[in-house]
Structure formats: C-alpha cells, structure tokens
C-alpha cells in the first residue's frame, strides 16, 4: 500500500521533472552534453563529490532548467555507470528508474526516520513522565518501533461494512502521498535533494492540500460520526493554518529572493546571525509564528484536535486498523520531520553550522576530495540534526501542554497569528529594503563587523 503511495508520488514527480523546460530530460544528445559538461565542471572546480551542484551549474549555464528530479543520480549514472555498460539503456527507462530510485530513497529515509522518531517520542515522553519507556526490545528499546511495525503489518485489516470502500482504501495512500510529495524539494544537505524545484516553497505549500483532501476522504469514507467530526476539524485547522505558514514563506522568499529551498539556505551562509531567524526582529517573530502554525499543520498537540482521543475517540482514523492506520501514523511522523526541516531551511540556516570556518570545509575549489566529502557529510548531518532537534521540540511540547478547543484554535489562527504574520511580512520586507541582509538585526553591520 505504501508502495502505491510511492508510485503515485513518483508519477507526480514525473510530471514535474518531465516538465520539459529542459526539453529533454529525455534528449539523448543533451544528456551527453550534460554529462560532458558536468565532467568539465567538476574538473574545473576540483569537486569530486558535488556532482549534482556541478550538473546544476552547468544546466544554468546552458540556460536550461536545472530542476530535474534526481539530477545527481543522473550525473552519477552518466559519469560512473553508463560509460562502462556494454549496451545502451533506453532513456525513458533510465528516467523512470531514476525517478523511482529517488522516490524510494526518500521513502526509505522516511521509514528509517519514522522508526527512530517513534522511538524518540516514546523515550522522550517516558522521561518527561518519570518513567523509562520501552526497554525490552533491543538496548533501551531501540528495536521497539520495528516490533511495532511488524505488529501493525500483521494486524487484521478491517474495512467497516458500511464504509465507502474505494475511498476508504484510497484515503491513507493519498494522505501519505501528500506528505511524501512535499519531500521532493526538501534538502537533506547541500545539493542533496530529490529535485531542487524553482518553486520549491510554493510546491510545499500547494501540495499540503492533498493531505487535507486525503484526511477528508478518510473521515467521510469511514462512515463514522466521530471520524466526520475529526475530518471537519482537520479541514478547518489545516486550511486556516496554511495562511500564516504561507505568509511566513513569503517573508523568507522576499529576503532570499528565491523559492528554491537550496537557494534559500545558500543565502544564509556565514555566521549564525545570518540565519533568517536572526536576520531581523520581524523574521524572529515569524519563525515563532511558523513553529506554532506548523504544530497545527501536522496535527500535533496542543493542536491535535482532529484526533483528540479524549473527545473524538481517534478522530478521522477511528475506523482504521493495521497497515492503513500505519500509513496515517507514518505520514504524521513524516510531516513532523517535514515541517521541522522546512523551518530549518527557512529560519535556522539549513545545513550551515553558523561558523564560517566549519562551513567552508570542502567548499573552496582547491580543497581535496576528502575535505569536500567531509564537508558534504557535515552539512548533511547538520541539517538532519537540526530538523530532528525541532522534531524533539514538537514531542516535548506535545507531552507538556493540554489541548486547545476548536474555537480557541481558530481564534489563535485568525486573530493572533494572521495579523502578527501580516505585520511581520510588511516589517520584514521594509527592513530588508532598508538594511539588506546584514543579519542580527543589522547590528554587526553597524559595528563594522
């Protein structure tokens, strides 16, 4: 079933990549040219690792749209594997396999991360609650999530008799796809991304609605009044909180001058005060707005109204069991990582450590392959650690705070977050015009730092 989600995502990704702005992700001649140029570029820059970056740079040079899915895999293929194959592979197969590979990688990451996140959540909650949490399976219960996963897959798959069968089956897949698709433009490190879309942030914001539709579908198809309640709450909540999130996006887009997640991070290079959270006071406020709204966006406490177990039994997934429930579960954890990673990209400097001497590791044209590799790994791990830390914060909040009521949730969104974020958008834009991107509210620039 999750395979179906992967396929669907792959399919939609195809649409994006096959967007033949570069008229031929398929054109053999161009592929060869790209390969040559990538080799050239990487030689010229002395970079052995950053194939993707080279390919992208090349693509920019040639005036083509660089944002093709899995371009780094493509480059890898073109440089390392293809020349040594005794036969030619049809390019459509190549593209399809590349895209599926990208999807599978993202999917694999989500799975591995979700296993860890579930364990983290249980451990953190346990320690918050003065208990130990899972201790039996594996050291400190590390393998507990795997055991749980096996349990989920082995459970009986129940579809209520009066449920709308096709929609009931489709809903979890759609929800999961909605989350999975948003991973497409998400970086995992410098140039380590499935597809660096030009419209990355816009894509993230737009595709989020697919998840809402999936949730509505689940709640409606279950034919259960509690599910319906959960559905209506979800729809209200997610649609409302998309707005402050969107405004936060816009403010950062204005500062970075790009919607590409890679470029937004690239714009925050330098000392940690160049991170957008410290760029100007308005962005600081917006980052808080975003963090609150993102909690609501992925239905985490204190905004877990859609699945408020004391009120709605289990909300929109009351009737789900087995692996279908597992998919909802997985998408919830994936969404947690997703919003955290987007927060890291937007406000917390992406993969930059905030210390230029560390950031520069492997970045200069003269650095050795080892140094570039180290730099690459460092950035990837910095990025993922920052995101996981924000996931930890979400867990922390969840196990500390009570749940708000529906009207309070709406009040917070429309009467607090929305005006605040609008003011901050205007303020941040004006600040950006006045001071530019000097960071730390412009103080270092004033002090001549």
């Amino acid at each position, binding site marked *: 079933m999750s395979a179906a989600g992967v396929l669907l995502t792959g399919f939609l990704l195809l649409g994006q990549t096959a967007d*033949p702005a570069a*008229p*031929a992700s398929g*054109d053999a001649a161009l592929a060869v040219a790209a390969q040559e140029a990538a080799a050239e570029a990487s030689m010229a820059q002395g970079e052995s690792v950053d194939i993707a970056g080279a390919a992208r740079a090349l693509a920019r040079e040639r005036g083509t749209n660089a944002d093709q899915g899995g371009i780094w895999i493509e480059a890898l293929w073109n440089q390392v594997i293809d020349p040594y194959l005794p036969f030619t592979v*049809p*390019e*459509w197969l190549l593209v399809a396999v590349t895209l599926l590979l990208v999807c599978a990688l993202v999917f694999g990451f989500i799975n591995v991360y979700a296993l860890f996140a579930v364990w983290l959540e249980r451990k953190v909650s346990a320690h918050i609650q003065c208990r130990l949490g899972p201790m039996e399976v594996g050291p400190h219960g590390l393998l507990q999530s795997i055991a749980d996963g096996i349990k989920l897959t082995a459970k009986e798959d129940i579809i209520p008799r009066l449920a709308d069968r096709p929609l009931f089956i489709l809903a979890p897949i759609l929800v999961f796809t909605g989350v999975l698709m948003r991973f497409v433009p998400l970086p995992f490190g410098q140039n380590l991304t499935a597809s660096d879309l030009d419209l990355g942030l816009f894509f993230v914001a737009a595709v989020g609605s697919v998840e809402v539709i999936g949730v509505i579908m689940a709640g409606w198809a279950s034919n259960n009044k509690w599910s319906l309640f959960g559905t209506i709450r979800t729809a209200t909540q997610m649609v409302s909180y998309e707005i402050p999130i969107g405004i936060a996006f816009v403010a950062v887009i204005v500062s970075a001058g790009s919607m590409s997640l890679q470029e937004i991070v690239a714009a925050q290079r330098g000392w940690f005060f160049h991170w957008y959270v410290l760029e100007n006071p308005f962005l600081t406020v917006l980052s808080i707005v975003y963090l609150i709204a993102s909690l609501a966006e992925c239905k985490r406490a204190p905004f877990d109204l859609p699945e408020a177990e004391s009120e709605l039994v289990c909300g929109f997934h009351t009737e789900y069991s087995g692996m279908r429930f597992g998919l909802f579960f997985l998408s919830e954890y994936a969404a947690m990582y997703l919003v955290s990673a987007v927060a890291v990209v937007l406000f917390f400097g992406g993969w930059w450590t905030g210390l230029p001497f560390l950031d520069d590791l492997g970045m200069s044209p003269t650095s050795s392959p080892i140094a570039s590799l180290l730099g690459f790994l460092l950035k990837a791990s910095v990025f993922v650690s920052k995101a996981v830390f924000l996931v930890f914060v979400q867990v922390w909040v969840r196990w500390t705070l009570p749940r708000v009521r529906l009207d309070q949730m709406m009040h917070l969104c429309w009467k607090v977050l929305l005006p605040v974020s609008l003011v901050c958008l205007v303020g941040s834009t004006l600040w950006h015009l006045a001071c530019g991107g000097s960071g730390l509210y412009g103080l270092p620039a004033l002090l001549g730092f």
Partner: protein
Amino acid sequence: MTPGLFQGLQVVLSTLGAEGVPAANAAATVLESSIGLHHYLVVSALVFGIGIMVIIIRRNAIVLLMGLELILNSAGLNFVAFGKYVAADRIDGQMVTLFLIVIAAAEASLALAIILNIFNSLNTIEVDEAKSLKG
C-alpha cells in the same frame, strides 16, 4: 524507443484526426516531441463537452458547480496551450489562466454561499426545486 503502449495510444489519437498536425510536426523537428497544440485542444474539448453534459444532466447544485469547474479548467488549458504554441509570449496565456483560477475561486465561494442559503430555506439543493423568486 517508443514503447508499444504509447504507440497504441497514438494510433487511437490519429483516428481522431490528430495525425499530420502541423504543430506537432514543427515541434518534432526541434524537440522530437510528438505532443503539440492539438493534443491539448482535444483534451480541452473532451472535458468541455463533459462539463456541459454534467450541467445539463445533473440537477444537484453542487454537481452543477463541478461541471462549471470542468468547463473553466478546459478553457484555462486552452489558454496555456495557445500561449505556448501560438502566442508571441507564452506567459500571456498563463496570466489569463491565472486570473481564471482566481475568479473560479471567487465564483465557487459565492455559489456555495447561495447554495447554502437555498438549502436553508428550501431544504434541498436540487436546482429544479428552487423555482420561486422570493425567499
């Protein structure tokens, strides 16, 4: 290189008369792309016709709106396709569709509000039932 399945689809389309489409040929010389303006126009025409059918056949106001959205979408597709293949600046077609989407959103919200009102007073949203002018 063309897989059989797609070849089959092409045959189907060629029976519809899309064969020998100048645009497709012209594009093919540059991009080896067999997809041209006509393909989009066909899709658009099909969806437009379906939209009309939905509007005529169905009596539920919300379903009528759905038919309307189909028609608007097919029109939007035409604009973008013409923008790409005919117009001097391909952005212009996109701009029109962009406005179209926005207006569709406004229209949908207003129509739904009216439907809600009809439902409140008549307790039905079958358009045939809403005959009276008052209340």
